[in-house]
């Protein structure tokens, strides 16, 4: 399998930072907060590789750094140090050395993100179809007819009733808002999709259907995905490999079924055995 994303020693510290920060935080110290300078070490030295067509789970509880990690990859936040290389169309993009225009260009056309909170990923002042049109327009599609057709097809794919495509998303249920987000994320045919707790907070029956939809779309399109979640069920169903994070560090990584059935690290054992 070819790599699509290489993350190398990614670190994010909120606050002034000091030489002791990394040494006094982490799973052994049971804290994210540096006792010398008060900085919060959200992510420390995270390294992993995502392969083309793979679904990688990033699992952890609150404060694990999983969301911070993905935020940096989507340019919603800047790392303190570290690198991420995105391999796309024969090129290797050193993501954090690109200028803002280049980063946003990649983000708009070659990456997709689905947020836990739909208001972060959708524009609530334009229609559902308009949200998809916006992303298509950002990737230079300028034919109205093509935009309309693609938006209709994508919403149909994500099971949003076509009769509602011209409505504002604020009138939709949470599950349907997520579907619009997914449709929007897929609209440019981006090879990399980031999903941040996308089913958290939804009703259980809706969760199951959305997970199923994501799985089917992934199988059909072959898109590579990073799935951030604290939910073991989501990890089991969607991912083939998983990394487990605690207090900003990756403490274990491996095949998903192995992580869930034969966890090696202490925290992973604790996490897995806590499932209701």
């Amino acid at each position: 399998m070819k790599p699509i994303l290489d993350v190398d020693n990614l670190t994010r510290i909120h606050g002034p930072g000091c030489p002791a920060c990394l040494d006094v935080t982490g799973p052994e110290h049971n804290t994210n907060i540096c006792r010398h300078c008060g900085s919060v070490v959200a992510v420390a030295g995270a390294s992993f590789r995502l392969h083309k067509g793979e679904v990688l789970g990033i699992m952890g509880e609150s404060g694990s750094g999983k969301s911070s990690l993905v935020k940096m990859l989507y340019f919603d936040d800047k790392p303190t140090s570290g690198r991420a290389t995105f391999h796309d169309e024969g090129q290797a993009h050193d993501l954090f050395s690109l200028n803002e225009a280049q980063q946003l260009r990649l983000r708009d056309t070659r990456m997709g993100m689905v947020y836990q909170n739909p208001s972060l990923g959708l524009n609530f002042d334009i229609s559902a179809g308009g949200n998809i049109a916006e992303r298509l327009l950002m990737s230079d599609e300028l034919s109205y007819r093509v935009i309309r057709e693609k938006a209709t097809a994508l919403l149909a794919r994500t099971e949003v009733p076509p009769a509602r495509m011209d409505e504002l998303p604020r009138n939709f249920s949470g599950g349907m808002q997520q579907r619009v987000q997914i449709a929007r994320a897929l609209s440019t045919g981006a090879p990399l999709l980031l999903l941040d707790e996308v089913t958290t907070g939804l009703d259980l029956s809706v969760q199951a259907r959305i997970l199923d939809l994501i799985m089917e779309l992934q199988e059909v399109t072959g898109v590579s995905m990073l799935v951030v979640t604290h939910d073991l069920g989501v990890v089991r169903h969607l991912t083939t490999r998983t990394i487990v994070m605690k207090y900003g560090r990756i403490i274990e990584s491996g095949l998903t079924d192995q992580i869930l059935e034969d966890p090696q690290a202490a925290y992973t054992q604790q996490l897995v055995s806590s499932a209701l």
Partner: protein
Amino acid sequence: MHPVDTMGQNREGAEYGFAFLDEDAKRELRRSIFKAVCIPGHQVPYASREMPIARGFGTGGMQLTLALLGPDDACKVIDQGADDSVNAANIRNFFALTCPGVTGTLRTEEASVIQTRHRIPELPLRADQILVFQVPYPDPLVVVEPNAAKRCRMHGRADYARLWVKLYEDMVAFDEITISHRYPTRINGHYIIDPSPIPRFDVPKLHQAECLYLFGAGREKRIYAVPPHTDAVPITFNDVTFAVESFRDKTTGKRHSCRRCGADDSFLDEFLDDAGARVFQCSDAAYCDMRLERLEAAE
């Protein structure tokens, strides 16, 4: 420091500088104009001075005109095409008071500087003429992004997708683009401007023109320009044609003409006459007058 021509006196007997503004103010305005011309479509921030009329009545346009006028210039002021509206007349009188030597004129072809609100004259302007627009809202992105800092960055990246989304929503709702004035227009392939509340009819006049177009927003403190021979393209989808007002009668399909001079190619004002009938007349008064003159001369 240039010698100041002291011209005339106000009612209290104090002396004005030429063109009301001090020379430093004029210099800053000219620098801003120069920068605007060098970067077509880019909104240049400037220190907009307090003027003796309220904001919203053309202070931006006035500052540009005052910076440009010299004693040899001829100046015309129009408002919706008319020289005799209260606003236009007041501004013209102000110029007369503060710029001795400058000729006031009603004729488009005689003016070297024309200050306008909401219309471009029908007569194509020459390379030695400047059209100064009074602009209420300089930034076309203000309708889609309330944060000024973000708008700046969006302009820098030419990130205008959200403007096109507005067009998309129009097409979905009405099957056509319904923007009637302030139509977003792309200048020189990069910046998109708000061309001020001119009707769609006038937007094509911006494209590859002989004259210089300057836009001044006094309240918002921005100057921008469309230099001569510059591309100015109203934005649309590549499968939706930009259309101007047709002035076709809904029943007969015939294009209305001016009741006064008979022009069938000008932008027409539609109103009810004293008898209550619906009539059409050239919005550009000077153009109408000129056509009438020619018609009368021909007889």
